[in-house]
């Protein structure tokens, strides 16, 4: 089994990002203004879209 180190690091990076956003979402989403919630949602959707395109580009 030959897993490239950079893929493992990518997975760790993604998990840390998701954990960080999840923690912030649970703690502070209730204090966000309506505009802040909307912009956060749009940025989250865009983030996953760009991430998908990136993975598509590297052949996943």
């Amino acid at each position, binding site marked *: 089994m030959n897993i490239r180190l950079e893929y493992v690091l990518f997975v760790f990076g993604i998990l840390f*990002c998701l954990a*960080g*956003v999840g923690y*912030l*979402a649970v*703690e*502070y*989403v*209730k*204090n*966000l*203004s309506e*505009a*802040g919630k909307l*912009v*956060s949602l749009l*940025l*989250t959707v*865009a*983030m996953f879209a*760009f*991430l998908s*395109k*990136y993975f598509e*580009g*590297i052949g996943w």
Partner: protein
Amino acid sequence: MTIKRRNLYLYLTLICFFGVIAIFIVDGYMGIYDTVYITAGEREQKIESDVWQRNDPYRSSGIARGEKAFIRYEVDNRRFSGYEADIDVSVWRMQNKVSDVLSQHIAIGSFNKVQIEWVIDTAELLPPDAPPEQGFDYTLTIKRGETERNIILYVNPTPYPVIKTVPSPPR
């Protein structure tokens, strides 16, 4: 060219991620937050600052007649500058002020918090001719500068006394 474009998607992903983080910090964490703690009947009720975003008065749990409610008001300054305000607490019923509870000036340093405590005694609020079977609603108004928080305090009616049954006389 393909690698450049692939990296562009990665950079855009990172920009979006840090954008979300920045919004959560600036909009969700920074600012002035106030929390009210009401202790009545050995139960503490916490009213967090997000409750006030609905712009409705908060309906607290009831206070037993004759007992006291211990209220703690916490102001959390999560800003780089200091914060000063006048705190005025009063109790209202049917648009009439029943009593002034507290008037105090607070000054909080950056990323610090202040707590103010007071006691609401139901014996002092209720009218002397209040029937024991009737419950009463009061509005506790906390004014902090231009901001106003309203909490509805319900004073429970006195439980009905136990009716003693008289045994029927023996025949």
